[in-house]
């Protein structure tokens, strides 16, 4: 499959995300924030970083980049869309996912190998995992506290839309230890931790993150 990875001014993890897509068996296509079409890709990753310098609010300016018009349109029709870290912030700012991400409650940047539990495995990004599988990937953020009102949190839990939850000590103040959520259909996933940094033993805490990039094939073949 062709996976597009958008580079915004200030993106940091776009190259790792493209590499992860390739290691996952796909063709990675570099997309630019100024692009007005998606160059025929089958799925899109919005990578981590500090797009537009995090000016105004994280993801607030990126949401109105030219490329986001076709991304939002395609995702609403069912195209798989994964937002990692800053990408998750962009998805919340775009209202494709509910809630928001605010500054870590302890006010420090966090950079750790983080244990997670994958709680939704019927999405095109997580079908390679077992239900409730525990994985370790990198977590690095300054504004990673996931928040939403109680009714929204209850709705997400009730509909099984929490994709991943932090295990152990809550690293950033996210309500109900939520590390990632999805839309109802499951094609849009936002995740604060970085699976793209955990795909090769040499350069990460392991290869637990690779499933996010091999799931797409399984989802298509299923």
């Amino acid at each position: 499959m062709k996976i597009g990875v958008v580079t915004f001014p200030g993106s940091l993890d776009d190259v790792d995300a493209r590499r992860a897509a390739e290691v996952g068996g796909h063709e990675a296509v570099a997309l630019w924030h100024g692009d007005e079409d998606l160059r025929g890709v089958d799925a899109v990753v919005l990578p981590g970083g500090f797009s537009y310098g995090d000016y105004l609010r994280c993801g607030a300016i990126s949401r109105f980049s030219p490329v986001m018009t076709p991304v939002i349109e395609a995702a609403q029709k069912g195209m798989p869309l994964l937002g990692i870290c800053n990408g998750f912030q962009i998805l919340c700012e775009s209202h494709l996912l509910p809630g928001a991400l605010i500054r870590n409650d302890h006010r420090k940047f966090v950079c750790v190998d983080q244990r997670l539990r994958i709680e939704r495995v019927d999405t095109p990004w997580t079908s390679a995992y077992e239900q409730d599988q525990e994985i370790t990937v990198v977590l690095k953020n300054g504004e990673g506290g996931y928040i939403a009102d109680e009714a929204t949190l209850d709705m997400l839990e009730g509909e099984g839309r929490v994709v991943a939850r932090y295990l152990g000590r809550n690293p950033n103040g996210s309500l109900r230890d939520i590390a990632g959520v999805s839309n109802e259909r499951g094609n849009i996933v936002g995740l604060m931790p970085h699976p793209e940094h955990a795909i090769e033993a040499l350069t990460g805490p392991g290869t637990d993150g690779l499933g996010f990039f091999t799931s797409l094939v399984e989802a298509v073949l299923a």
Partner: protein
Amino acid sequence: MARVVVDVMPKPEILDPQGKAVLGALPRLGFTGVREVRQGKRFEIEIDGEVTDELLAQVDKMAETLLSNPVIEDYEVHVEEHTVAEIAHEAGR
């Protein structure tokens, strides 16, 4: 030219870590009795035309779509009497 100010504040129920950091620093500087600090943003917008309901509706739309995130923030729109250029001119005299 109209000058309109938009104040954006984190909603009362939302944790404000930046405000908390400022609150923690004040007693160290000798300021006592400060109970709470909330940190927000102020946007000063200068826009062509007179202040009309239509213009204010436009600023309200700006505040809702870009300047604030309604999930975590509230905003208020105020009209200011003078533009920045007028204030600078007054100050220079």
